[in-house]
């Protein structure tokens, strides 16, 4: 068990190192002089800001020192929690800005992922019950997964927001409110959250439903299903077993799909101007704030790694097979 966790942590550690390295490499190995183009693109008018940024750059880039030293300097900055200062929102530190936006993205992502996963799985299992259901749920599921996140988001914003007027179409909460622990603020938050959530949820839902449908068909053909059928066990019991067993690969699927869903969240946020990381990415792009951009990148990577790790642990807890294999059981 510990060995397994250790090994997983090792892989994630390496991934983190790779991510940081990519982050470090991109500005260095892209054509052009990064410092000059970054600073000039940032159109920093304030000489003080320019100086601070140049100082920071010189420290993290240290382009006159040997590459390996530059690399370690980059890490050193990272461990101090120093991701630089935002160019766009000068003089705020990048970390502060990101932390302010993270709750919105998480608030969108977590429910969308978890609910779409649970409901998608149930839907998929439901679809596998009959040919008619299968032939309706399946194509719909495929169309849904094939829908570009932003397009669905646009259509929903248009239909339910602009035309229908049921939901607000932009922002994280009403412009009339200040965050507070009141019911009014909460419902307002929910009403702003709902459309972006819905569009992510719907697209992700299709994928899970399809995955579950395919898994469960394999499980229903498995030997234990046949055996139980031969012993006259009711469909219900067999289906329950198959569902549970088909859930397990879906947990791994969750880890694999994470990247795609995050991409979807970013696009969806942009459409709804939702104040999460996606909008922040777009803003940092538009303002050529590369510190911010790279900071967000690292944050997302760390988030994904943590999520993966949680999924791994959950998987171990849920699947007796891996658990047994890890505690070194018989056979």
């Amino acid at each position, binding site marked *: 068990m510990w060995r397994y966790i250790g090994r997983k942590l090792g892989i994630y550690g390496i991934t983190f190192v790779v991510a940081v390295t990519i982050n470090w490499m991109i500005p260095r190995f892209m054509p052009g002089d990064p410092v000059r183009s970054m600073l000039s693109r940032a159109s920093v008018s304030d000489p003080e800001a320019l100086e601070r940024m140049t100082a920071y750059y010189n420290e993290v880039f240290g382009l006159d020192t040997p590459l390996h030293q530059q690399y370690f300097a980059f890490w050193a900055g990272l461990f101090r929690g120093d991701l630089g200062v935002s160019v766009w929102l000068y003089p705020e530190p990048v970390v502060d800005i990101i932390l302010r936006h993270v709750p919105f993205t998480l608030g969108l992502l977590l429910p969308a992922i978890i609910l779409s996963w649970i409901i998608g799985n149930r839907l998929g299992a439901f679809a596998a019950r009959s040919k008619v259901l299968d032939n309706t749920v399946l194509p719909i599921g495929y169309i849904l997964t094939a829908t570009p996140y932003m397009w669905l988001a646009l259509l929903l914003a248009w239909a339910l927001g602009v035309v229908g007027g049921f939901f607000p179409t932009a922002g994280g909460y009403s412009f009339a409110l200040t965050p507070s622990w009141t019911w009014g603020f909460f419902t307002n938050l929910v009403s702003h959250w709902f459309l972006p959530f819905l569009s992510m949820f719907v697209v992700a839902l299709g994928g899970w439903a399809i995955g579950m449908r395919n898994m469960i068909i394999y499980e229903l053909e498995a030997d234990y299903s046949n055996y139980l059928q031969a012993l006259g066990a009711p469909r219900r*019991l067999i289906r329950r077993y198959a569902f549970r067993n088909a859930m397990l690969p879906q947990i791994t699927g969750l880890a694999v799909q994470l990247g795609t869903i995050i991409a979807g969240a970013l696009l969806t946020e942009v459409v709804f101007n939702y104040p999460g990381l996606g909008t922040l990415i777009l803003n940092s792009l538009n303002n050529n704030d590369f510190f911010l951009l790279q900071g967000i990148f690292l944050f997302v990577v760390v988030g994904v790694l943590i999520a993966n790790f949680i999924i791994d642990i959950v998987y171990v807890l849920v699947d007796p097979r891996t658990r047994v294999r890890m505690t070194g059981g018989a056979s």
Partner: protein
Amino acid sequence: MTLRVNDLKVHYRTLRGDVHALDGVDFELADGEIMGLAGESGCGKTTLGKSLIRLDGRMRHVGGTVELDGEELPIADDRAMVPFRYHRVSLIPQYAMSALNPTRKIGRMIDELLRSRGVRPRKVADELRRRLELVGLEPDVLGRYPIELSGGMKQRVVMVMSTLLDPSLLIADEATSALDVSTQRSVVESLVGFRDRGYVKSMIFVTHDISLVHQMADTVMVMYAGRIAEKASTRTIIEAPRHPYTRMLIGALPEVGTTTSDTRLEGIPGTPPGLLDPPVGCRFRARCPLASEECLRTPPLTEVAPGHRVACWKTGA
């Protein structure tokens, strides 16, 4: 008489037409009888086993009847068969190693199965433990997952599980083929023990290994190309087989002790006919050294001696 099978015909649907997997099978199984069912691959022995408990999606009941304890089994009607399954007819599948739900503890799976079949698990709990001990398993296997057991242990769990409701008929389909020799022996002996203790009334033991049949079966039925070739008591089959196929089959078996330096055994030339469009007459004709004109007609399954039935024109010879 536990089981009476009359002219049973079961076809397999395939793209190119129906495969006549069982083409008129007639036999009876006495109370307490263990019948070995032997033959080459594709002879229909597994199909016969499945037909008696659950036809799979591609199988179609074409004709004939099956009676169990004097009651007709509605084998073509999947739903109507349900009450018979497990309670009256049970199965040890050839895939016993993977027959257990990998994510359920064994005890729980058994409980859930029992409950779904209308049996209160508590009522049979003691019996379950007793039988597990009988096959050499600690009762604590019930608290374990299948992956924690070895192949032989899983096999025995399935054996106990399948027979827990004392069925009249147990079908053991290649139940020991995947096991090592030593495990195979103890499993087979346990099966015989189950019959002796009355846990199962009668048993059909499907196998390709005639020497194994010899160790445990009371009678042997040899099938060839969807039909019965010969059925007799085990001793008769081993010592005085009448059908040329049976004879050649037994003759091709090397024994511990036979070596090439002593004798060179011979196989049976040729391959079994396809059953999509089976040949007329005796189906063994093409490979039979004794074949003649007469064999162009289908030989009936005739009783040449009490309890010894053969389908061959040449039995007299």
